[in-house]
């Protein structure tokens, strides 16, 4: 095999090459959606087994804060999507401003989430309070780690702002949005 053919083979990601951004990011995204999917099913099935515990736990959550965080993440995702469109037409300054706005909204999500955790802690609610709150902190905490990682990735692609990097970084951020859009009604509203 020639050197050129070997390089081409190394770049061939099969069907993953059809997706926007680097294929390796999509391997991560697929892994994450499977993991979160299993966590959602675990939460839902446990809720069916312990409906009273889950109803009591859900009553202590603030759906308005969860809804506010949904609006924050949706708007952040919108700015990230606009950043990719801006970069497509070569407007690097606009791209960076949009990414900064997106990352700032991500930080606001983190602040609201910590305020929610602090309110729970002051009410004496923790990881070991009951099954509902064990899963609540596990799911939302795991998602929060992804939000923080997403903010770091948005900052990185703001610095190294090739179109490919932007598509790769924002794909991760949209996955984080997508997971929250399912997680919010499951934890805060459905019961």
């Amino acid at each position, binding site marked *: 095999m020639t050197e050129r053919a070997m390089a081409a083979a190394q770049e061939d990601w099969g069907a993953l090459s059809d997706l926007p951004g680097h294929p390796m990011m999509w391997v991560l995204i697929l892994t994450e959606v499977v993991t979160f999917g299993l966590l959602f099913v675990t939460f839902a099935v446990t809720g069916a087994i312990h409906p009273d515990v889950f109803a009591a736990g859900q009553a202590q959550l603030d759906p308005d804060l969860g809804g506010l965080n949904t609006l924050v993440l*949706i708007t952040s995702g*919108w700015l990230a999507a606009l950043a990719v469109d801006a970069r497509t037409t070569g407007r690097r300054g606009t791209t960076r401003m949009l990414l900064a706005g997106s990352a700032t909204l991500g930080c606001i999500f983190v602040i609201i989430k910590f305020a929610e955790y602090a309110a729970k802690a002051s009410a004496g609610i923790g990881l070991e309070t009951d099954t509902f709150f064990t899963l609540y902190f596990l799911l939302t905490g795991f998602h929060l780690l992804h939000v923080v990682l997403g903010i770091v990735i948005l900052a990185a692609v703001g610095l190294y702002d090739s179109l490919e990097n932007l598509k790769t970084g924002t794909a991760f951020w949209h996955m984080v*949005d997508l997971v929250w859009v399912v997680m919010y009604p499951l934890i805060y509203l*459905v019961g």
Partner: protein
Amino acid sequence: MNLTAVGQVTRAWGFLVLLTLLNLAAGHSGLSGLAANGLILVAAYAKGRWMLMEFLKLRNVPNGWQILFLCWLSLVTFVSWAAAAIPLLRG
């Protein structure tokens, strides 16, 4: 900037905000039961679909990828609804 692409993304954002407000209103109305859960989760499915198609740009990729992600979305929202329905049906 490509106005068509921007317009599509902005329209999707508008729908996502609207559906989130609908979810919040459903939560405040005190509605509960199978139908209310169904409404909330259909809204979640619709939001997820818009995100996949307009934000993640899956609209422009082969159908197999769209089907894969929409199956995941359908599965998690349906299991959420079905699991919540079990205790309600038991009374």
